[in-house]
């Protein structure tokens, strides 16, 4: 009993903490504990189908690009799109590259963007790298902008490759650039003319840097130095490659959901969930009386835990995801039903209720484990954690699989640990009416 009381108090504290995190206006943690900086936002993430927005799937045409460079090219293209989207001011975009055997894809999720033309122009164009000089030499100490510079006639097409390397003397990271023969010729002319002056590098009309030219560069090889970190230098080389290797991309899928449809769906699903939950709760009480009531409390705990997990992991909630959650509520009471039925059986065979109850938990466990295992297998296949190309990778399917998986696993905990503790604390044997029931 002492043990049970301990578990019970832990559960109560857990419930209070969870309620705090599950509040409609979620808290965010931004604090230092023992010198470790912890920062986390606890809010429900809604998928595009609920929040409204556009999802684009782009396929890169790699025909002209050598096998060895394809991975880098895709990565560059992704970086370019990321930069464009960020520059455009879309909040919380998700940009992923998907690669398998012969398929090179980029998936772009733009919450809140429902104008598809806008979205397509935003991501569909190829990157532009440009070298520019100041129009007035006097201004050369100011920061470079499109307005005060002019093109020197060298663009991404003249660049063969940019790579990250480390300076042989200082060991500092730098970016080496290599021009095509044509580009090298132009570059030599320009650098000769601009010795001592800045030469600005622009990507998609945004200045990346404006290094000062120190000598004429005739061999088509250049080095961009600066106080880069390794990551910055790598980033720059990726961006430069993006300008140099514009992978033609094609939109193969586009899904746009208006904000109103999403909001409408959320409201309807919540209503359906609440009514269904009420029915299940009432049904449990009708079937099992006080025991059903305790199972319902465990079910509330189940709700608190899953919502917390959605926010903590975080799981992006999609409409099928919510359906998966609602479905899992129906399944969550399954373990309790198995246990209670077992308990009733043992009790009818004449065992004292305490022993019948413990036997119920013990014997039901095997079926609970076996039965839930298949649902877990299916949800893992649907979620496709290894991102295998031969299994579904659709976000909608994943949303469903994620909530179903979490639901089943959580229900194993609440259905067994929570209910058991509640029963040990608050259940004092069947009422006379139930005791007299015979088969």
């Amino acid at each position, binding site marked *: 009993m002492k043990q049970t009381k301990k578990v019970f108090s832990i559960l109560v504290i857990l419930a209070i903490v969870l309620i705090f995190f599950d509040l409609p206006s979620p808290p965010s943690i931004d604090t230092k504990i023992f010198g470790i900086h912890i920062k986390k936002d606890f809010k429900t993430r809604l998928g595009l189908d609920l929040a409204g927005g556009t999802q684009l799937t782009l396929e890169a045409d790699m025909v002209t690009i050598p096998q060895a460079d394809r991975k880098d090219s895709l990565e560059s293209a992704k970086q370019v799109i990321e930069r464009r989207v960020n520059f455009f001011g879309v909040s919380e975009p998700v940009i992923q590259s998907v690669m398998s055997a012969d398929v090179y894809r980029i998936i772009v999720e733009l919450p809140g963007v429902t104008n598809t033309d806008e979205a397509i122009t935003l991501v569909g164009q190829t990157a532009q790298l440009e070298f520019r000089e100041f129009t007035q030499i006097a201004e050369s100490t100011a920061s470079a902008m499109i307005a005060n510079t002019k093109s020197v006639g060298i663009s991404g097409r003249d660049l063969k490759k940019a790579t990250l390397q480390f300076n042989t003397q200082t060991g500092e990271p730098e970016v080496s650039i290599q021009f095509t023969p044509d580009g090298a010729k132009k570059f030599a002319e320009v650098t000769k003319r601009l010795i001592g002056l800045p030469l600005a590098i622009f990507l998609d009309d945004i200045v990346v840097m404006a290094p000062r030219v120190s000598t004429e560069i005739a061999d088509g090889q250049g080095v961009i130095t600066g106080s880069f970190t390794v990551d910055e230098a790598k980033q720059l080389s990726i961006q430069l490659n993006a300008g140099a290797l514009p992978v033609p991309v094609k939109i193969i899928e586009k899904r746009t959901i*208006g904000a109103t449809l999403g909001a409408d769906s959320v409201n309807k699903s919540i209503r359906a969930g609440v009514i269904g939950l009420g029915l*299940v709760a009432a049904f449990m009480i009708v079937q099992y009386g006080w025991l059903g009531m305790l199972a319902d409390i465990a079910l509330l705990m189940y709700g608190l835990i899953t919502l917390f997990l959605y926010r903590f992991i975080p799981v992006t909630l999609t409409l099928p995801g919510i359906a998966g959650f609602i479905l899992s509520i129906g399944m969550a009471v399954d373990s309790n039903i198995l246990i209670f039925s077992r308990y009733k059986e043992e009790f009818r065979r004449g065992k004292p209720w305490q022993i019948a109850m413990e036997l119920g938990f013990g014997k039901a466990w095997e079926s609970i484990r076996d*039965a839930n295992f298949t649902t877990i297998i299916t949800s893992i296949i649907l979620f496709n954690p290894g991102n295998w190309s031969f299994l579904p990778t659709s976000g909608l399917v994943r949303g469903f699989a994620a909530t179903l998986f979490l639901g089943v696993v959580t229900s194993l905990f609440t259905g067994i640990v929570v209910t058991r503790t509640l029963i040990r604390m608050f259940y004092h044997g069947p009422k006379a009416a139930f005791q007299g029931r015979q088969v």
Partner: protein
Amino acid sequence: MIRFMKYIWIYALISGLVLLPGIYSLIIYGVKPSVDFTGGSVVEVKIQTPIEKTTIEEMVKSQKIPSVSIQKQDNATYLFRMGKVSEEQITEFLKTLQTKSEKPIDILRNDTIGPILGSELLFKSVIASLFAVVAILLYVAYAFKDIKSGVSAVLALIHDVLVVFGSFSLFGYFFGVEVDTLFMTAFLTTMSFSVHDTIVIFDRIREYRKRSPNANFSEVIDVALTETMGRSLINSFTIIFMLLALVLMGGETVRWFAVALLIGTITGTYSSPFVATPILLLWNRLEEKKKRR
């Protein structure tokens, strides 16, 4: 104890009555694939000022939008399914639609799916189902140390899959319901449901066989079914409550998804005692006959 196994022919009859129309429809009409499979565009628009359907039809025709179907969802919402159209064509189409309406139109959905993705989805769904079936078969066979249990469970699973597909073939023929990505998800979930209940029953059968190894197998099954029936029904009811709530109130987008899950749950619950278990029994009888010879 109820003598469940005395009435195997009734279960066969019920399954037959449910399966035959579905299978017939599957063979003759097939299922109606959505743009997720065929590629094309779907545009859903809410128009505040009512526009005559004929006006819209004419508009679609004059803009040369290929293989279009127009469906009126409720009083103000229209769903347009189109063949291969360009983004410009859709933009143009929406602009003209706007000029016909006094109030601003609300674009609810605007999806374009390339044809490559469609065949990919089909391929992936098939692979995922095969994965699931093999994994379930192996798990059941492992858990029960008995290939017969595994095969019986999977046969019941195939029964359920056919019921779900058959129903959607009929829905497609009569109500124009399409089979899309969500349907494939529901169908995979049905597979795990189907086995869920079967395992609980088989588990009980195993327990009683251990307890009384000399008892008649069909009696063992009857006892096990009598005891698990209440639990199976109660459990399915809770799931059915949740799904019914979704079907009736969850809105247009998830309705048919929830219907597919609902049918899957019902047939999954039915097939465990009345398809999987009889198969296991008949198989056992067959083996015993062979042994006696």
